[in-house]
């Protein structure tokens, strides 16, 4: 897989003005998607779950590959 970096901004009432300035400088327009901290946590946990599933499926494929080959050192 080839993945693309994603940038997160943490914004509070204290740094909102600074965020607006920096964001507008970088992206030109002030349009963004906002997530609550709880939703950010859920998103992170969902991605962790996908990572777990991907790793486990990979290990199962390796297991079956080793099981059907004549010689196996368990790798």
């Amino acid at each position, binding site marked *: *897989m*080839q*993945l*693309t*970096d*994603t*940038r*997160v*901004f*943490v*914004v*509070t009432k*204290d*740094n909102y003005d600074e965020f607006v300035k920096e964001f507008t400088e*970088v*992206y030109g327009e002030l349009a963004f998607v906002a997530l609550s*901290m709880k939703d*950010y*946590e859920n998103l*992170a*946990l969902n*991605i*962790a*779950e996908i*990572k*777990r599933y*991907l*790793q*486990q499926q*990979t*290990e*199962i494929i*390796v*297991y079956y590959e*080793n*099981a059907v080959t004549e010689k*196996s050192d*368990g790798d």
Partner: protein
Amino acid sequence: MLRIYAILVIVGLLGGVGYAARSYYHDTQNTIKVLQGNNAKLEIAAETAEASTKALQADMIKNAALTKKLQSQLQKAEAYGDELRAKLNKLNLVVEALKDAKVLEGKMNGATAKLWREFMGDTGNTNQPDLPEWLQRSETGTGSEDSNPDTKDSDTNSNTTEGSATN
């Protein structure tokens, strides 16, 4: 005359005994041949059975080792999620954000970049992109010890990367 009959009877008896002995000999020889053939077949069958048993035992040992390793690897795959859950339970992100938004932002972006690269590594991509410039700046700004000094990407936009996928 009686003597001649007696001799004929004796010759007949001897002939009969000889014929019977010859038949018995041939029958016995045939039986021996059949038994030798059966014995050879049984030896082959026994060798095959022994080889099959050994192969099954070897397979059982191999499968037991593979299953043990699989269980261990499946368990290991749970580690990232468990660590993340523990970290999120320990931290209150709202409090951390109010304390220092930039520090939290740097940690989030650093962890996310690391996660994407782990995904790429897990799927066989050995040609991973450098960290983007905005992330390096963020890491330097927050004094992160994890910042990569070898990074070269000067792109300020998060929607571009370098490198190519292998799968």
